């Protein structure tokens, strides 16, 4: 059964088609990478799925329901969680409180929310940050907390928007471990937008490539990096030369 089904999706902003003719399915339990050059429409696609934008064409089905044009909070209540590429906090909430807000989707009790948020933070090894303010966390920790908050809503599908941007290689390794844990241990399907190819190659069972608003390729990671159209649009010739052994672990494009 398809968890998410996107059919012929289009999103027009005035004269700009940010997405057009995008169709794909995500199966339950799957982990899918979404790559493409800047401005290809990846985040727009996320925003359409998450209900932030109302797509101008096409339909979106989630859990066998037509959810096209639903509001973000309705999507969240159905079991869709997401992170944002840029996270700005004025810093009113501590880390624990932030995760509790996520938990409040499923419970009204403050005690239960606090318990669950504590458990989640400790299983993600973030307990030591509980009382810290969201606004002055290091980037890597902030990305993990934002993920913890999204997970606190107990989603079925998690959309990750560049969670590895700005991380060093050790932190990227940790992030890979974390996302894998989310997928296998918590059984949550994941779509990830990512420029760090190491992470995409390592985690994705399938990769979708978006260019100029439309899907240009879809397939297993090893297959995808060899496709001429993907190399031309996104990876560049250098990527293949430097990774003649591309079927093993990919390195960052830099």
């Amino acid at each position, binding site marked *: 059964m398809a968890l998410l089904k996107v059919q012929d999706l289009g999103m027009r902003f005035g004269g700009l088609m940010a997405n057009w003719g995008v169709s794909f399915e995500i199966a339950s339990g799957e982990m899918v990478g979404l790559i493409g050059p800047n401005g290809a429409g990846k985040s727009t696609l996320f925003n359409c799925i*998450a209900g*932030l934008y109302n797509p101008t064409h096409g339909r979106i089905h989630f859990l066998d329901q037509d959810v096209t044009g639903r*509001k*973000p*909070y309705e*999507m*969240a*209540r159905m079991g869709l*969680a*997401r992170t*944002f590429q840029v*996270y*700005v*906090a*004025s*810093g*009113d*909430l501590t880390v624990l*409180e*932030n995760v*509790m*807000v*996520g938990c*409040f*989707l499923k419970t*009204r*009790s*403050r*005690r239960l*929310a606090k318990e669950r948020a504590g458990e989640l933070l400790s299983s993600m090894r973030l307990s030591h940050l509980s009382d810290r303010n*969201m606004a002055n966390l290091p980037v890597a920790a902030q990305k993990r907390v*934002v993920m913890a*908050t*999204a997970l606190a*809503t107990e989603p079925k599908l998690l959309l990750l928007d560049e969670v590895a941007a700005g991380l060093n290689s050790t932190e990227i390794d940790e992030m890979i471990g974390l996302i894998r844990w989310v997928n296998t241990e918590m059984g949550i399907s994941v779509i990830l937008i990512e420029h760090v190819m190491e992470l995409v190659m390592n985690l994705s069972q399938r990769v979708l490539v978006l260019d100029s608003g439309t899907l240009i390729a879809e397939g297993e990671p090893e297959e995808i990096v060899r496709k001429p159209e993907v190399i031309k649009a996104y990876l560049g010739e250098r990527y293949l030369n430097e990774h003649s052994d591309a079927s093993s672990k990919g390195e960052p494009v830099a």
Partner: protein
Amino acid sequence: MEALRQAFDFSDFPRTDLCVAVAVAVFLFVFPALPHSSFAMATMIQFLMFSVYGMGWNTIGGYGGQVDLGKAQYVGIGAYTTAVMQIRWDLPFWVSLPIGMSLAVGWSFIIGYPLFRLRGHYFAIATIATSLILKDVFESWSFIGGARGLKIPLRAEMPDFWFLQFREDYYYYYVILAFFFVGLIYLNWFRQSRIGMQLRCIKDNEEMARSLGIDSHWAKIKAYAVATAFVAAVGSFHACYNFNIEPEDVMSLDLSVLIALMAMLGGAGSLWGPIIGAAILVPMKNYLGAWFGAKAGLIGLDLIIYSTIIMAIAAFEPRGIWGIVTRIRQSRSD
């Protein structure tokens, strides 16, 4: 039960805060027994009234981050409900109080629904507009006295607890002190509650809040209604305390601005903020206002001082005095 425990749970505050709070509470209880002028008593009553106004403002303006400059319309609804019901139908304060609060909350839903489609400055401007429109309506509505307002007749017997009419001010003082503590305990629950934390998340990042399943529009309307109930309750009290009410007095833009200003000066979005703000501005308003007006012949200079304070808060510390305290504490602990 859990909610009640939560309301009395102050355990996340540092011990110094609680010691100061207890000392202040004791002072507030014994104040009428201390030697004081009647002007000081009136100032204390006003301080308590503005504290509760500020607590109300704080739910939507502080925790919710929606700058509301139209609170006076709810003071007016509360005050007029109490006055009209007493004059026309001889109904006591304790009957008109909940009715006034309900009417105000009802009105807050009606205007809150479209108002919260607006953001930031546009929201603030719209709150001013609705408040002024309602004031105009009240001024031209002869059933409730029009622009000349209403005068509540004195009861034959005093003290009258049902109609809140007393010869001595300390009765009024203890009534509003009770409101003050009920408000404080409620707000302590609110800030830790589901809705309170959802609001703080909306203030932090509304897009993220929505993606966490929070209907931000509805959450703001609810918080606005809570704020309204506080303000209307004090408005009802104001009618009994002052006997005379008129739109220019209870529904003016000045009053709306003063309510917001006190909460912002003390610290928007903190439990103690509105109380601190009222403790500074109410005495300043009364004593400076009297001094400038009577002795120095500088009527209006106090308004210049308020404006300067607003600009200083906006420029240096949007979280107000409590923000400065927090910052000093953080720099010490780091």
